[in-house]
């Protein structure tokens, strides 16, 4: 009986000592040595949306390799550790912990998609991880998140630009607008933005329909929109479902003007759909693949050098990731020799009018704002060249009450 009590006492004491002493301890200068800078990236490599994650990962890797070949930064070579989250939140959390605790990376360039980044926000702040998410939501910068830097126009801004184009450029009278969205975080953001903008313009949304990412047929959505006489379809979805939608619409001889956000504004849509994409207009916060800007030329050269065939990948994703990596490289250069997560954050906050050679609209970060430029270009499918051709310059949503 006595022994039993002693054992319980030992166990409880060990627990109490552990609780009191428990707490992570990091060595100084996380992820940086004399010769290397360890960077992490959480990006989908496998699963239904792998086609989006792969070019993203390749571009970041290619930009960092290019920097390494030119001597690195302050003599340090960048080592990228790419973790696959399969676009799943639990996997992204595990990957984040592995990168920070085990690999001890300086920072994680991108922490997965929208739900993954939102789930990780607390830990991003706790462990001081400056990152550029591909979660383009208002709440990423409003309220201010000290370690999150937003690069691209938010979903809200992109949807507003679609409505502005319909109402101001196309001068549509009493347009019948439908919304097709994925039942995901970004899809819902787009839907809400569409409702708000429609109200501001005093128009009604004729139809709101879900088209999920894995859908292989969009007959019910197309027929419902046709039935409702919708002539402008605002979508908030990825490339594969948009291809499905456009092809299904062609099958039913239904030809509305279809708008897509940056995750579906890609040459692949035109190549895959052909004539079905003739009324497709996309919005993107990066330059078009064939643009003449030095930034886009650099990105094309990188792809060529690394045997990335533009006909076999989503070039807009490659461009967006390449631009993200360029922003990080600029930040690392500005942080100088004394490189820590905090000094990288401060260096990024000095970026002013930085446009990655024209691959991006000019961005400005300050110690109190990491908001994106919120500018984007509209692109229209060009069936002759099978690319998305810019039909506007960088523009931001019209100010409305």
């Amino acid at each position: 009986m006595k022994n039993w009590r002693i054992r319980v006492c030992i166990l409880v004491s060990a627990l109490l000592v552990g609780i009191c002493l428990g707490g992570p301890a990091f060595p100084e200068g996380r992820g940086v040595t004399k010769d290397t800078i360890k960077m992490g990236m959480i990006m989908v490599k496998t699963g239904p949306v792998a086609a989006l994650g792969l070019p993203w990962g390749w571009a970041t890797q290619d930009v960092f390799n290019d920097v390494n070949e030119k001597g690195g930064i302050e003599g340090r070579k960048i080592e990228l550790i790419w973790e696959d989250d399969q676009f799943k939140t639990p996997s992204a959390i595990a990957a984040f912990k592995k990168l920070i605790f085990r690999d001890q990376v300086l920072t994680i360039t991108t922490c997965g998609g929208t739900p993954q980044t939102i789930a990780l926000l607390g830990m991003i702040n706790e462990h001081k991880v400056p990152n550029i998410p591909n979660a383009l939501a208002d709440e990423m910068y409003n309220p201010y998140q000290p370690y999150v830097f937003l690069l691209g126009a938010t979903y809200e801004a992109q949807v507003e630009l679609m409505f502005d184009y319909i109402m101001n450029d196309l001068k549509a009278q009493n347009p019948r607008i439908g919304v097709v969205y994925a039942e995901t975080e970004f899809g819902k953001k787009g839907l809400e933005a569409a409702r708000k903008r429609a109200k501001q313009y005093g128009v009604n949304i004729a139809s709101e329909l879900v088209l999920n990412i894995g859908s292989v047929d969009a007959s019910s959505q197309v027929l419902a929109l046709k039935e409702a006489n919708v002539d402008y379809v605002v979508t908030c979805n990825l490339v594969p479902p948009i291809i499905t939608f456009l092809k299904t619409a062609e099958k039913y001889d239904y030809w509305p003007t279809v708008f897509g956000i940056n995750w579906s504004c890609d040459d692949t849509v035109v190549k895959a759909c052909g004539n079905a994409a003739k009324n497709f207009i996309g919005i993107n916060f990066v330059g078009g693949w064939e643009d003449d800007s030095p930034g886009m030329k650099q990105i094309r050269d990188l792809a060529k050098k690394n045997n990335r065939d533009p006909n076999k990948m989503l070039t807009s994703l490659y461009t967006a990731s390449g631009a993200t990596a360029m922003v990080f490289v600029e930040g690392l250069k500005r942080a100088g020799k004394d490189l820590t997560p905090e000094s990288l954050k401060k260096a990024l906050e000095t970026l002013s009018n930085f446009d990655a050679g024209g691959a991006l609209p000019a961005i400005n970060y300050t110690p109190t704002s990491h908001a994106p430029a919120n500018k984007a270009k509209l692109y229209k499918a060009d069936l002759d060249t099978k690319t998305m051709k810019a039909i506007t310059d960088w523009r931001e949503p019209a100010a409305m009450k």
Partner: protein
Amino acid sequence: MRSKTFRESYQEDIRVFHTVWVKGWLCVFLVGLATLPLWGDPYVVYMANIAGIAIVGAIGLNILTGFTGQISLGHSAFLAIGAYTTAILASRFGAPFWVAIPAGGTVAALFGILLGFPCLRLKGLYLAMATMSFGVVIEYVVTHWESVTLGVRGISVPAPSLFGYSLGGEYRLFYLIFLVVVLLAAAAKNIVRTRVGRAFVAIRDRDVAAGIMGVNLTRYKVMSFAISSFYGGVAGGLYAYSTGYLHPENFTLLLSIEYIAMIIVGGLGSILGSIFGAIFLTIVPDLIKEVATFAGHHLTFLEGRYNEEWNIATFGLLIMLFLIFEPSGLNGIWSRIKNSFKNWPFTY
């Protein structure tokens, strides 16, 4: 000559600790484990937490499937119910963890009872389909009942705290999970060696015979569902605190299959087996990755080939291999190793 482990009564046979050595080693192990945060790196502690949560869930499923013979493909639904109950109580009502976690378990148990009644007459494939459908329904509900679950936006869960002292972070959370695992594992061990546990096993072996012997089939089958889903709900609650954010995609059919894999690989009808299986399958992805990376350094055709889909394929392969070659799971292997040492130098 009387052997040290010779048992003369049924009471002796169902003892939890057969010898003082077992008791001693368990204490040493638990004390050693309690000091893990003092010497383990944060990732190891995080993995220990995930394994601990998996242990609770796997014990629950093993009580239903391994001990009572009721196959369930809907275990992820109970985790979801427990996780969302805990998250909602903690985030909206500011409930402390010692209320939110048991509440998660209790609500899951109530749903377990609800599911248990219509499933009374179902067996095998039909039961698997019914439980799977329940999982799909719950997944749909947590995705679409936005006013309660916030749908695909996900729900943030505040860190647990005790008398104003935060238990957030891997290290402190470890002790909470550790305590719950020890308590629930001990409770399960005791449940299965009592009258209730024997009734479960009787139902598993032949329910008609059990009924004839006087086992109330309705009562015990529903009880098994309730206990199993309580464990699932508690695991869900711990998971909510561990990740700090819940999203419907966390609770898919794949999660139920992972739990099935845990109890098959660990050993059906064994508490120790559930623990082995949960730990093993938690570390398998890292293990495969390490092996693939190591192999990639030496075999060029494997270099950079690893991807996360290998893990899913491995789960499937492990279930197949264990069912064919080692139906008693890791627990069976462990028992054989133990016996061979016990009998050494004799072979019997």
